[in-house]
């Protein structure tokens, strides 16, 4: 069971990293314009439209 001593903290740390990443993405405004993100990838930057 010694394996738990480092696997459990690792699992928690990974989970916490995910949470912090989400909170950061929320704060940096990545969810403010969901529809815009979908259409913004369409135009090609190198072709004058």
């Amino acid at each position, binding site marked *: *069971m010694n394996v738990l001593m480092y696997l459990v903290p690792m699992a*928690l740390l990974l989970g916490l990293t995910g949470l912090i990443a989400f909170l950061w993405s*929320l704060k940096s405004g990545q969810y403010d*314009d969901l529809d*815009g993100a979908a*259409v913004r990838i369409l135009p090609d930057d190198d072709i004058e439209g």
Partner: protein
Amino acid sequence: MAETVDLSMFVEPGAAGASHMTLAVDGVACAGCIRKIESGLTKLPGVIDARLNFTQRRLAVDWRNDEIDAPRIIEAIEAIGYHAHPFAPERVEADDTAQASWLLKCLAVAGFAAMNVMLLSVSIWAGNVSDMTPETRDLFHWLSALIALPAAAYAGQPFFRSALRALRARQLNMDVPISLGVTLALGLSLFETATHATHAYFDSAIMLLFFLLCGRYLDLTMRRKTRLFAGNLASLKAEFAHRLEPSGELVQIPAAALHPGDRVLVRPGERIPADGTIINGTSDIDESLVTGETLHRAVRSGMTIYAGSINMSGALTMRVTASGAGTLVDEVERLLDKAVEAKSQTVRLADRVARLYAPVVHATAALTAIGWLVAGASLHDSIVIAIAVLIITCPCAIALAIPAVQVVAAGSLFRSGVILNGGDAIERLAEADTIVFDKTGTLTLPEPRVDGNAGIDPNVLERAARLALSSRHPLAAALARVAQDRSPYPGAVEEPGQGVRAIINGTEARLGNAEFCNVVGNHPIAARDGTASFITFTHNGSVATIPIRQTLRPDAVAVTKALRKRGLDLIMLSGDRTAAVAPVAEQLGIQNWRGGLTPAEKIAAIEQMQSQGRRVLMVGDGLNDAPALAAAYVSLSPITAAHLTQAHADALFLGELLKPVLQAVIISRKTRALMKQNLALAAIYNALAVPLAIAGVVTPLIAAVAMSGSSLLVTLNALRARSRAETRS
């Protein structure tokens, strides 16, 4: 005329001589538009950044003050081919945005905790049936506690706060049993963990919070979406006023920035931007949006005029006044205060269920504990079982049952052109049994139309209509609608307050008032008809007098018939003259109608109906309808309604048709049926789960499965609100 535009109201000062402004942009439909606007603006000297939010159709611009200013930026957007309107977000919207991001944070924390606790719980469940040592189980329980307790303390705040508020007001809402369930589940689990027991309920408590937060967040998202849309519409409609500075200079400013005492010039064809008294000029004004009266009122110096009326003929200079005692606006506001106060807080379905539910649940738990004690169980076991009852009855499904349906229904309503101001409007719409209609602007179109039966030669009408395209006068705008050829005549000149002239096929044509067209004498039709306005057209010696009047919404007859078929009693209460109301009532087959009503009489009529036990849906648009809308059980306004009126309506409808009113009734009735169905599903779930809990055989695994299962079931059932409502309509 070069006129300065003052947009300082919308501009936020930034750091080091920079400024920021938000604009609502009309007509953005694709990726190309985003690119065109953003790159077009950033190319301008002085613009630091331009970012278009496609979801909100709003553009945020930052610029340096010494190189460019707000009006020039708007001009630049116009030049690119889009209409942009400066935008001042309302307080409610800012609050909602803050609330949404808070809920999302709580949701994220609860989601993270639920995943990690479940990871540990599944290990425990598997370990309990295999070879896990009690020490490892204890370690896992403590780890779960370590995650669940802080997470619940953070993510549970929306529920704890609301429950505390309700308890302080000596009331019960759904959040009381939720908070109690979560707190007890955590407390019990902690106790069980400390005493090395087999079961702990950390996973149930945190999952419950996660599901409930999903429901809350969905509910708020729905409200935000409709508010956002309404906010954009309001800024597209925002009025500008021409303020006369003491120096005699004319400055264009947003109507919302006017202060009492300001002098304002109102040109013919413009809307009066604020309440005030006329200090110079005479004119006729159309007050249909204010009083419902379709006959124009002649005004002169010293008379009071109201925001929302349209100046029809002469230029007016007015002084803005705060609503003084004895004016119509003052009267409306006084009545409004009374109506809002008197409107008994209607209890939402969810809260009604909560009032019934909470005592029953708590009594059941208490009885369970007593029952087990009497049956000879230990105090510890009895309390553990009683708490298991509280956890399993925690109204997860019930708390999701209603918001989930509301969100889906609000989407359906939105696609049918109905924007909800509040979530509980759906329930009240479904319960309405009487519809009270205002006439002007509600049953009739908000703008007047050319009378099709006037017998005017179609060729002449077409020429007049095409010429009308070059004028901004409201009557001309009505005439311009019938033009087949939508290109204005080249070289057409508008004489403000007079009319337009242009050379058509080599000869001059004129459209405007009789003097402008050199026509003297009475209008042939005017003599026998006081309900129309007239616009004169002369060309090549032929003279046409075109009547323009209020007409019914094109589907009014069909919609009123369909509403009656659904068992609704239709009544018309109008502020317009009886002579103008009677023909409309006859045409629509409304037997119960009254004309010439004051705002107070409208309220009295509605209150009388409500005292007879009727539930009144009021549909109206005028300023004079605002108190009646607030007094009615539920209310609808067209989007063209006066500002104050819109603010007091439960929902707004878009477009020229009356059909959204019918749709609102149909969809909300379906929705209510689904809500009840969902509550029944949740009740069945409780009926199955509670005996298990009372019997003391509920393990955390059973609790977790039952809870997720019931939440999923009600959410899936809610999705039917969409397909059902839309396929049947």
